[in-house]
């Protein structure tokens, strides 16, 4: 690798001389002889990602790929571990002086990549930027913070508008930037030139081809074990698997569920999994008589019996076994047990076609009805196949489902404007707390309260809403948990507002020599990886 680098710089210095041409000709000749052996000279970690981060400004576009990449370049006040437990990040410890006031004591002697010291001013600047910058994509994650006070260079006080227990979890998602750097270089400079305190700094970014990260020797937790990480976007599933199988990359994310056998058969590779906090669920339009994608002038989903029949007709185990190849967990509720607010006692209705048919008949649809099912085909793993399988399961109780599979650009817009009657959507409770799902998907839509924007089916219930609002403004975790469980009892067990299908498992294809623990956040934190000795 070193010699190669030198060769390159020499070539650069000479420009396009005859030597380069001779080299090119030689290259042609020796091409097929060379083989792939020289790829393993130095232990550079090359990673194949399913999605290229579009920006490296940690506050701009809060897609999973951006946040995951930024988690290596930036640090946050609070870290979460693989199982979503919080632990100290840039803040060494914190306390509540009263239910609305949080005091964070910052770590000493932390330096940004450019050598400047990290202080409380940077925290204040970053949170305010996340909150107020017009292009910020993470406003919703800091909106309850009303004020940031710098007490001294090592202490910051945050004031919230209501008692808000999950605050520290939310702060993991607010990376800290350098005030001086952003102000000197300008806002738009940040998208391609990130500079933080994180365990890696960005060396180069050739768009569409690769990022190169170099370990930050000065990182407060000690330098990362792997010096150089090359991250390559390989968004085509088959291409990504091929790159892993041929040894070009040593780690890939989102392995297609059916490629796992092939990878496991290779002794140099292994499959690693981590249950995600994502729930794939079916929504049903249930608050209006005239629904946009249902044939006829009645809306069957307004009838609880029909919603129950749908839940009974769907065979989650079969979906998981055959479509997800076993890489998912059938969902009885909207979040897995690791998430605060889940209910260990809650059970779904099970799979029972006879009962489903009986309920459908009782509701006045003995011959079923016709409806269009909207699904993405480029979003989550096997999204369009799941829709087809659900359609064939519903066909068995007489519901004729027409599938509209389209890219997420179209489906998101349909769902955002509720121009849909039936379909799949998902929610990721990656902060480890149910409150975000409840606020956005289960609470009745209310623009004034800023709640329920992603409540596609239009469900609403006064009692459930009150419980959700209560759990959003309490610092007593026990009380909050009970309120959230009670709410789910109402909207799911009683009213069947949704049909939860499964929690997908995040699958990584990993070179056997790499030691790495997947995280429930699905972020790839290279600083915690190392080469096995």
């Amino acid at each position: 690798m070193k010699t190669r680098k030198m060769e390159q710089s020499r070539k650069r210095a000479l420009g396009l001389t005859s030597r380069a041409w001779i080299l090119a000709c030689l290259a042609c000749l020796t091409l097929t002889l060379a083989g792939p052996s020289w790829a393993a000279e130095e232990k550079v970690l090359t990673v194949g990602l399913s999605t290229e981060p579009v920006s490296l400004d940690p506050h701009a576009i809060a897609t999973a790929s951006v946040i995951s990449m930024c988690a290596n370049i930036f640090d946050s006040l609070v870290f979460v571990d693989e199982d979503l437990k919080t632990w100290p990040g840039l803040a060494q410890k914190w306390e509540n002086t009263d239910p609305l006031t949080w005091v964070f004591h910052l770590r000493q002697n932390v330096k940004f990549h450019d050598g400047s010291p990290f202080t409380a001013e940077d925290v204040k600047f970053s949170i305010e930027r996340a909150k107020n910058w017009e292009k910020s994509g993470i406003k919703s994650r800091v909106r309850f913070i009303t004020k940031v006070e710098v007490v001294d260079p090592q202490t910051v006080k945050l004031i919230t508008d209501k008692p808000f227990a999950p605050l520290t979890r939310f702060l993991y998602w607010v990376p800290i930037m350098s005030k001086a750097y952003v102000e000197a270089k300008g806002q738009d400079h940040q998208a391609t030139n990130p500079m933080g305190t994180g365990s890696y700094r960005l060396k180069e970014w050739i768009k569409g081809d690769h990022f190169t990260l170099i370990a930050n020797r000065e990182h407060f937790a000690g330098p990362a074990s792997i010096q150089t990480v090359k991250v390559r976007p390989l968004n085509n599933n088959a291409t990504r698997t091929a790159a892993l199988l041929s040894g070009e990359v040593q780690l890939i994310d989102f392995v297609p569920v059916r490629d796992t056998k092939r990878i496991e058969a290779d002794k140099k590779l292994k499959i690693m999994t981590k249950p995600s906090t994502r729930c794939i669920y079916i929504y049903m339009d249930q608050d209006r008589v005239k629904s946009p994608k249902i044939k006829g002038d009645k809306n069957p989903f307004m009838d609880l019996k029909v919603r129950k029949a749908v839940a009974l007709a769907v065979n989650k185990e079969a979906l998981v076994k055959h479509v997800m190849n076993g890489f998912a967990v059938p969902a009885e509720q909207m979040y897995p047990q690791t998430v605060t607010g889940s209910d260990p006692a809650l059970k779904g209705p099970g799979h029972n076609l006879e009962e489903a048919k009986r309920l459908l008949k009782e509701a006045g649809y003995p011959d079923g009805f016709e409806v269009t099912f909207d699904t993405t085909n480029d979003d989550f793993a096997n999204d369009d196949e799941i829709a087809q399988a659900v359609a064939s399961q519903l066909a068995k109780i007489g519901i004729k489902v027409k599938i509209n599979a389209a890219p997420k650009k179209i489906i998101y817009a349909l769902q955002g404007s509720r121009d849909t009657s039936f379909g799949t959507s998902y929610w990721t409770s990656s902060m480890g707390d149910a409150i975000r799902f409840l606020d956005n998907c289960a609470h009745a839509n209310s623009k004034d309260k800023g709640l329920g924007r992603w409540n596609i089916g239009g469900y609403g219930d006064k009692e459930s809403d009150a419980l959700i609002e209560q759990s959003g403004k309490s610092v007593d975790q026990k009380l909050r948990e009970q309120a959230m469980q009670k709410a789910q009892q109402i909207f799911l067990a009683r009213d069947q507002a949704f049909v939860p299908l499964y929690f997908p498992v995040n699958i990584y294809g990993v070179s056997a020599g790499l030691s790495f623990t997947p995280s429930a956040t699905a972020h790839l934190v290279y600083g915690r990886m190392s080469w096995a000795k």
Partner: protein
Amino acid sequence: MLSYLIRRILQSVLVLLVVSLIVFVVLYYSGDPVELLLPHDATQQQVEEMRAYFGLDQPLVNQYVIFLKNALHGDLGRSFIFNRPALGLVIERLPATLEMAFLAMALALTLAIPAGLISGVRPKSWPARIIMPSSLVGISIPTFWLGIMLVLVFSVSLGWLPSSGRGDTVSVLGVDLSFLTLDGLRHLILPAITIAVFQLALLVRLVRAGTVETLLEDFVKFLRARGIGENRVVYVHVLKNILIPVVTMVGLQLCEIIAFSIIIESIFAWPGMGKLLIDSIHNLDRPVVVAYLLFISLILVFINFVVDSVYSLLDPRIRLR
């Protein structure tokens, strides 16, 4: 010549206007980029603020007028997603695409001309009996399928060649090129072959047909009668004659390859313009889609112009009007 050039450019400007208008209207109705930019837990207020920021809350006509005004000053807007000038994003990807296209074309041409001549001159010889049926298979193989199969065989099963990406690049006059490094060349081989096979088959057939027809021409009989050697007749006089259709075809096919790079680039994760277009369409990144289409139109017009010029050089009977 000059008036021809001016007319071509005026035509293209008209095309660009129409294309940009269509893209504007269709993208306007095909979804909302803000829904893709913001997480699902964004509030309604946040959605509206961002829409206003990008000017997407304006009526379509206003948006288009603003675009035209800025375009007149050479500003095609900033990408919604990347937050960078759209044209810059497209141009930055140009070398990768052109490099692959030129290499594939060079590969196809160097093999096609001898193969086509041989099978035209000696249709009954054994090379011709292999070349012609293979060329028919060559134009029948779907390019995307060939790419997949090559990856399966040469990257996955045999492990000889990398399946994706560009590899090491060398900067020449500020342009990153792959084919000057060993690693880069190894990355170029599979995508270039994938594209070249169809082009090769097409060109072989063209050269062969041209050879067969030319050999029937009177001037060939005349040359032979004058006692000029058979080799000279074929490799100088006949070849010169069939170059005209070949040049035209190469030009047209070069455009075709640049367009086809969209598919090849997504199979081989090649960081060129085509991949950017697909991604931008999926992200509803209107400024980039418009910039790509405007830019590619210019390239296509330019290639067509070069072809026409070469054409008139080779055949003085043709005048550009």
